[in-house]
C-alpha cells in the first residue's frame, strides 16, 4: 500500500490539500468544522505521543497531563497576566517541555512496566496539584474566559478562523516530526527501539535520546494544550486525566505505532466514530476499550504501524490453532 501511495504522491497530496483547505465550505456547518478542528489537534497529540511510544519504545500514560499542563499554562498567563496568545502559547510549550524533561530524566531509566505506572502517577499528581491550588488555577472551578488570539488587530473568533489556524499548526507539526524521523536523530530513535544494546555500541547515547524524544513530545503536547485552551475558552482539570491519556494512547495503538501516518489515521478514526455512529454515544468508552484490546491482540503494531516494537521473539506463529495443516494436526505442536 505504501508503494501505491508513493506512486500517486502528487495527485493524492493535491487532492488532500484541496479537501483540507476547502473543508469549511464543504462541511457547511459550524459543528462539523469544530469536530474537524479537534481532529487536527488530536492528530498532533497522537503524533507527539508516537515519538515516545513508536520511536523509542517507551510507553507513557501521562500524555493527557502534559496536554493539560500546556493548556493551563497558556490559560493562566493569558487570563492572569493578560499576555497575548502568541506569547503564552510558545511559553506554555516550553514550560511543558521543561516539566517533561524533568520527569523524563527521572523516569526513563525504568523498565517499561514501571514507566507506565510512573507516568500514570505523575498524571494524577498534576491533576491533584491543579485541583488544590485555587489561587493559581481556580481549583475545580476551571478557568473560563480564555481569550482568542489576535493577529494584527484581527481577532480570531469564528470556527473557520480557528480551523485554518489549527490546520496550519497540525501540518507544521506533522512536517517537523516527519523531518525528525528521516534524519540522524530519527535513526537514533528507531535504533533504540529496535535494539538498545546495538544502538549503544554504534555510538547512540540511549538515555539521552530517550529524554530528547520525551521532551520534544511534551513540547508539542503543551503547544496542543495551549491551542486547545484558547479554542474552547474554558478548561478544567478533569478534562486532562487518565481518560484523556488513554484516548491518545488508543489512537496511537490503533492507527499504528512507529510510523508517521499511523497516529494520523488513529486520531481520525477515533474522533470520527462517535460522530458517524451517534447511537453508540453512551457506548463510546466501552468501544474504545474493546478496540484497544482487540488491536493489541490481533495486530499489536496497529493498522499502519511498524512491527519493530512488537515483533515476536521467535519465529513461531502467534496463533497455532489457526495454522492446522491438511492432516488436521497443529503446526509446530
Amino acid at each position, binding site marked *: 500500500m505504501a508503494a501505491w501511495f508513493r506512486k500517486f504522491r502528487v495527485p493524492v497530496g493535491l487532492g488532500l490539500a484541496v479537501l483540507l483547505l476547502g473543508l469549511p465550505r464543504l462541511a457547511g456547518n459550524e459543528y462539523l468544522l469544530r469536530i474537524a478542528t479537534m481532529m487536527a489537534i488530536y492528530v498532533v497529540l497522537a503524533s507527539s505521543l508516537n515519538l515516545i511510544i513508536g520511536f523509542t519504545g517507551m510507553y507513557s500514560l501521562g500524555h493527557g497531563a502534559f496536554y493539560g499542563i500546556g493548556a493551563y499554562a497558556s490559560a493562566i498567563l493569558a487570563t492572569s497576566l493578560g499576555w497575548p496568545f502568541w506569547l503564552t502559547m510558545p511559553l506554555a510549550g516550553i514550560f511543558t517541555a521543561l516539566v517533561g524533561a524533568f520527569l523524563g530524566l527521572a523516569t526513563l531509566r525504568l523498565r517499561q512496566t514501571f514507566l507506565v505506572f510512573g507516568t500514570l502517577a505523575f498524571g494524577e499528581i498534576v491533576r491533584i496539584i491543579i485541583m488544590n491550588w485555587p489561587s493559581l488555577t481556580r481549583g475545580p472551578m476551571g478557568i473560563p474566559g480564555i481569550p482568542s488570539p489576535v493577529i494584527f488587530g484581527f481577532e480570531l473568533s469564528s470556527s473557520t478562523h480557528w480551523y485554518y489556524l489549527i490546520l496550519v499548526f497540525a501540518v507544521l507539526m506533522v512536517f517537523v516530526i516527519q523531518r*525528525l524521523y528521516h534524519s540522524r536523530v530519527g*535513526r537514533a530513535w528507531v*535504533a533504540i527501539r*529496535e*535494539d538498545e544494546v546495538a544502538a549503544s555500541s554504534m555510538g*547512540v547515547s540511549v538515555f539521552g535520546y530517550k529524554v530528547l524524544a520525551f521532551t520534544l513530545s511534551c513540547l508539542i503536547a503543551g503547544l496542543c494544550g495551549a491551542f486547545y485552551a484558547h479554542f474552547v475558552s474554558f478548561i478544567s482539570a478533569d478534562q486532562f486525566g487518565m481518560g484523556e491519556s488513554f484516548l491518545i494512547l488508543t489512537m496511537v495503538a490503533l492507527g499504528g505505532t512507529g510510523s508517521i501516518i499511523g497516529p494520523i489515521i488513529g486520531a481520525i478514526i477515533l474522533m470520527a466514530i462517535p460522530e458517524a455512529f451517534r447511537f453508540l454515544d453512551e457506548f463510546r468508552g466501552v468501544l474504545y476499550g474493546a478496540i484497544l484490546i482487540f488491536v493489541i491482540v490481533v495486530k499489536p503494531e496497529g493498522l499502519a504501524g511498524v512491527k519493530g516494537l512488537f*515483533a515476536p521473539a521467535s519465529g513461531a506463529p502467534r496463533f497455532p490453532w489457526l495454522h492446522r495443516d491438511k492432516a488436521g494436526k497443529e503446526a509446530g505442536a
Partner: protein
Amino acid sequence: MILEISKLEKKFGGLVAVHEVDLSVAEGSIHAIIGPNGAGKTTFFNNITSIIPADSGTISWRGERIEHLSPPAISAKGIARTFQNIRLFAYMSVLDNVLTGTHNLYKSFVWGAITRNGRYRREEREGRELAMGLLAKVGLADKRDEYARNLPYGEQRKLEIVRALASGPKLLLLDEPAAGMNNAETAELVSFIRTLKAEGMTVLLIEHDMKLVMSLADRITVLDYGVKIAEGSALEIQNDDRVIEAYLGKRRA
C-alpha cells in the same frame, strides 16, 4: 600494542566469567580468541566495549584507559563490534542500518534535521556515499531499502560487519562472524578480513571455526572457564597440551 588489557575480572554472582585475563593486541594484526563454549569469550568482548563493564582490571586503547567509558564513548574512540547473535536493527532498512553506524561521525541534531540546513544536507550526503560504498563492497548495494530482517542469514552477518565498519574504527571486534556459514561464505569472509587487514585494520575475533582461525590469525589466545590457558601462534596453539585437553579432555594414559 594498540590494545592492552590487564587482569580483567568479571563475576556474575558466584560465577567467575572472566578471571585475571591479560591480552595485548598488536596494531594491524588479526588476533583470535578461542575456547570451548562458555569460556567467557563474549563476556570478555562485552567488558571491552563496556556493555557489561568489568569488575576490575584495566583496558588501554592507544595509550588511553577506557574501562570506565560508556559504550557510545568507546565507539567514538574507534572500537566497533559485531554480536554473536546478530543484533541488526530488524525493522530498519539495510541502508539505515549502516547509516546508524555513522552516528558518531556527524553532529547534526534537532535543528538541522528540521531545517535541513547546509550542514545537515552535507552530512547526509557524505554519510550516504560512505554507506553505499561499504554496501557495494559486500554486494548489498541493491538491497539498500530492504528491511534488515528480510535478508538471508549470510547477508545479515555481512551487513552487521559493514555497519560496524561505517564508523571508521581502528579496531574491529568480531564475535563468531563465521557462525552458520558454509565453506564458500567462510572463504569469502576470510578474504574480506584479509582485505581489512591490508587496509590497516586491527581485528580481534572470537571464532569456533578452527580452519578460519588457523589460516587468518597472527596470534591466538585460548580461554577456558574464564582463564587464559595459552597464547601464541597457530602452530604453537595446535600443539599445546592444555588447549587439547580443554577441547577434548585428558588423554587416557
